[in-house]
C-alpha cells in the first residue's frame, strides 16, 4: 500500500493530525476530499463563484498556516469545525461587501396579482436568492445546511452552535417565510 492510498484511507481527524506535523500530502488529501463541499456552502452564502472559491482557498490556507487551530480534544468532527471557519469567512466577506449581488432592479408584482405572474427562470432564481438572503443569518444557515447540504439536524445544530430543538425551530421559521414569499411571488407550495 503506497503513501497516497494510506492517506486516502485515513479519516479527517487523522489527516489533520498529520497536517499539524507538516504533511503537505495529508493537506492535499483533505483539500481533495472536501473543497467542493465547502465551496457549495460558501457559494450558497456569497452567491458568487469567484468569491466562494477565494473563501474556500483562504480557509484551507489558514488551516495550512495554523493547523493547530484545530483542537482534536474538543471532540467535534473536523468538518463541523471547518464549516464554521468557512461560514465565518463568508459572513466577514458579506460585511465587507455590504451587499450580495441581489437583484435590486427586480420589480415585485402587485400582491393582488397572485402567483400567476410569470417571471423568466433567471428572475425567479434571483428572487429566490433574494428571499433566502433576506432571512436572518441563522435561519439562512439552517436552510442551507439542512435543505441544500442535506446535513443531519444534529450536525447542523453543532455547526450553528444551537440545540437541535432550536435548529428545528430555525428551519421551520425559515421555510414558513420562504413558503409565503414563494407562493406570493413565484407561485408554488402553500402556506
Amino acid at each position: 500500500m503506497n503513501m497516497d492510498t494510506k492517506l486516502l484511507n485515513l479519516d479527517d481527524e487523522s489527516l489533520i493530525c498529520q497536517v499539524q506535523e507538516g504533511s503537505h500530502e495529508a493537506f492535499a488529501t483533505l483539500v481533495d476530499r472536501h473543497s467542493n463541499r465547502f465551496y457549495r456552502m460558501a457559494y450558497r452564502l456569497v452567491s458568487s463563484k469567484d468569491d466562494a472559491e477565494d473563501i474556500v482557498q483562504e480557509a484551507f490556507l489558514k488551516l495550512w498556516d495554523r493547523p493547530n487551530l484545530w483542537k482534536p480534544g474538543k471532540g467535534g468532527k473536523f468538518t463541523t469545525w471547518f464549516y464554521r471557519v468557512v461560514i465565518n469567512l463568508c459572513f466577514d466577506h458579506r460585511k465587507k461587501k455590504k451587499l450580495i449581488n441581489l437583484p435590486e432592479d427586480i420589480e415585485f408584482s402587485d400582491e393582488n396579482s397572485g402567483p400567476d405572474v410569470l417571471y423568466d427562470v433567471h428572475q425567479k432564481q434571483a428572487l429566490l436568492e433574494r428571499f433566502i438572503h433576506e432571512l436572518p443569518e441563522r435561519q439562512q444557515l439552517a436552510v442551507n445546511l439542512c435543505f441544500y447540504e442535506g446535513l443531519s439536524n444534529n450536525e447542523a445544530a453543532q455547526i450553528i452552535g444551537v440545540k437541535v430543538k432550536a435548529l428545528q425551530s430555525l428551519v421551520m421559521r425559515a421555510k414558513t417565510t420562504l413558503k409565503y414569499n414563494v407562493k406570493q411571488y413565484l407561485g408554488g407550495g402553500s402556506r
Partner: protein
Amino acid sequence: MTMNFEQFKEKLLMYGADVRCWPKDIRSSALKTLESSPELQKLVEDEKRFEGVLNTRKYEEPSRDLAGRIVAAALPKKKKAQRNFGVFFSDVLSEFSLSRRAFAAVSVSLIFTLIIGFTIGYSNLSGYTSAEQYETHLEDFLNYEGDVL
C-alpha cells in the same frame, strides 16, 4: 401510535416532503396518518412543489482545478516558512525521525554545553593577561641579567 394534523404539519416543515426519509421513530406513524388523511396528502403535494421551487436555486459548479489551486498555493507558503528558525528545526526533527522527547533532550544538553562553555570562558577573565603586561614581562625577561643556567 398516530400523530395529529398539527404534529404532522410541523414535522413536514422540519423533515421535508419525503415522509419515507423522516426519522425512523416517527416514520411509520407518519405514514399511517398520511394514508388516512386526504388533507395531509394535499399538504405533502404542496410541500413537494415548494421544495421543487427551492431546488431551482441557482448554483455554479466550482472550477475543476479548485483543489489543485489550493494545494499549489500552500506550497510556496511552506517554502517561505522554512526560512523560519523554528520551522527549520522542526523539519530537521522530522528528517531524523527524533521523538519530541529525544529532541528536547538533545536541545537541553546543547544548551548546557553552551552554558558550561561560557562559564569557563568568563571565569578565566580574572587570570587574563593583557598584551601590555605581556610585553613588560617579556622585556623583564630579555633584560634579566641574573645567572644563566
